[in-house]
């Protein structure tokens, strides 16, 4: 009984004449139009590569004390001041114990970026997990959102200081001074910064899960886990990416503030924030020791913020194509 009836001409679909444009290509095209975002992306890639590969190219030990070559100025100082103590062996100068500034900037950047990325990723994971769970499972919603409110009510910087002064010792004795501090700072920043992400994600999930395509997926028997992974997460990606950009910046700044207050990483472990804080007393004689790490922090944060701006514009279909 199976007879194939040839469809009439008008009902035949025309094949697409252009290959389909993927969503990500649209996003990228829009993103490219945002000059600040392009600069941000470029600089962030540059700085990440620099701190990753830099220490191999410039292999001076940042902690090596070289008392004979102390207080050297960066090489560019020679342009306006012929008598300045400069040398190619220390292209960015050295500090009061003769430690190489170039090596310190590179390894300090590694620490700052590591703290920033790790704290950001952790905070996103917590925020997204809680947001999705609260939005998707109605039973969990009340409990999880009360928890979120509770964390929002905790004062961040005082709590951060509190936790650092309290738990520094037990953690450093288990994981070593740097490892312990890293775990402490990263986890505290993450634990106190996931709430906005969770709230935004929950809101979006609540709206999306009522949409037809989710209903369709459910009707063909898709398991909840798969619905979340295949249908919900890709659609809440844009708010997540935007909070990611802001989270990275906040984490770097927070770490440097802790270092300034003297409760950050141990003193023989450079980070940008710590270099800046240590050099503030010698700001007039050796401005470069403040400016170099200061500029590094600012440019990184600036580029991440621009990147976030660009992403927001690019990922928002209402703005895209305007």
């Amino acid at each position, binding site marked *: 009984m199976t007879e194939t009836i040839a469809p009439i001409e008008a009902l035949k679909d025309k094949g697409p004449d252009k290959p389909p444009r993927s969503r990500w290509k649209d996003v990228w095209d829009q993103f490219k139009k945002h000059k*600040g975002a392009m600069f941000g992306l470029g600089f962030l890639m540059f700085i990440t590569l620099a701190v990753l590969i830099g220490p191999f190219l410039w292999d001076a030990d940042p902690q090596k004390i070289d008392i004979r070559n102390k207080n050297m100025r960066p090489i560019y100082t020679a342009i306006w001041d012929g008598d300045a103590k400069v040398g190619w062996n220390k292209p960015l100068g050295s500090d009061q114990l003769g430690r190489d500034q170039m090596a310190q900037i590179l390894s300090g950047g590694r620490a700052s970026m590591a703290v920033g990325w790790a704290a950001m990723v952790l905070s996103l994971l917590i925020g997204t997990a809680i947001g999705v769970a609260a939005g998707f499972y109605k039973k969990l919603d009340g409990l999880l959102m009360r928890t979120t409110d509770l964390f929002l009510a905790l*004062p961040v*910087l*005082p709590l951060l200081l*509190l936790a650092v*002064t*309290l738990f520094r010792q037990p953690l450093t004795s288990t994981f070593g001074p740097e490892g312990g501090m890293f775990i402490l700072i990263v986890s505290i920043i993450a634990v106190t910064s996931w709430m906005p992400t969770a709230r935004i994600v929950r809101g979006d999930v609540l709206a999306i899960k009522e949409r037809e395509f989710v209903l369709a997926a459910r009707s063909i028997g898709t398991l909840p886990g798969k619905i979340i992974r295949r249908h919900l997460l890709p659609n809440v990606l844009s708010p997540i990416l935007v909070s990611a950009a802001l989270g990275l910046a906040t984490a770097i700044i927070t770490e440097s503030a802790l270092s300034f207050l003297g409760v950050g990483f141990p003193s023989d472990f450079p980070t940008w924030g710590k270099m800046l804080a240590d050099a503030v007393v010698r700001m*007039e004689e050796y401005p470069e020791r403040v400016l170099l790490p200061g500029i590094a922090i600012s440019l990184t*944060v600036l580029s991440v913020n621009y990147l976030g701006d660009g992403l927001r514009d690019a990922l928002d279909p209402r703005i895209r194509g305007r």
Partner: protein
Amino acid sequence: MLTYAIRRLFLSIPTLLFISFVIFMLLQLAPGDPMAQVPLTVPPEVKQKMREALGVGEPALVQYWKWLVQVFWIEPQVAIDAMFGTNWSEGKQRVISWQTRSPVMDIVIQRIPQTLWVVGVAYVVAILIALPIGIYSAYRQYSVFDQAGTFVTMIGFSIPPFFTGPLLIVIFSVQLGWFPSIYDTTHVVNDWASFKEQLQQMIMPVMVLALQITAMLSRYMRASMLDNLGQDYVRTARAKGLSESAVVLVHVLRNSMIPVVTVIALGIPSIFGGAIITENVFKVNGIGQLLLTWLFANDLPGVMTLTFIFAVLIVLFNLIADILYGLLDPRIRYD
């Protein structure tokens, strides 16, 4: 709306109790010692006696219960006494700081004026600067002004105050000698000249703080304006022939202000506690500096009470922000 507010208010009590318990247990786990700052020349037996005199050795739950009673029962009595001249609280044990051996609340009240002067003024200044910048940047999106504004606010966002603070001191106090580098908390404003002095000593910390707050607020304002400028009602307003200023400054601004007002309200608790670094750099010795000193001295009653006050303020202003949101935006109904 009223029932909603009352329900939220009652709900916040267990929340606050829970927060206070969490903070207390955190402090109990602390390995720090209130005697650590006492010099080595004081022998350990004496330090032990001093600890006992402070009540350090008592079980944690007993200490917590005492603290609860002191904060929720005795301190309000003290406040009533101070207002109406009664003497309910006479002879009752208040929350005593380990470091200064004096009631914690007295010191907190002593610190509030300078914190309000500096951080509060910075907040107001920041609002006054941020809103126009945000409005104009959004109205002329991607114009030169917008780009410059974005750049400047980003700089403000990314430069930490412990860098801008000492920089201002070097320029304006050491080189130019215009402003004092150390804030005088005993200064009394009673005439024009003393007001001028107060302005001079406030200007640097206010500048540092306002830069940061402006950066944040103007971003919010711009985003909110952008959202609204693309809405249909704007086109309608323009189509019916309203002047451009009426469209932007009346219709769009009113709607854009809704989320911004709540952001401002949510930021108010940070006026009381957030300026730890700036206060430290300029020696303003407000609440933030107090918390830092107590933390480093392991003064548990002080730290506990202060963090709890912050938590109360945050919960309170969260509530106020939610209610404001409902009042300003008729589309939102709480039930």
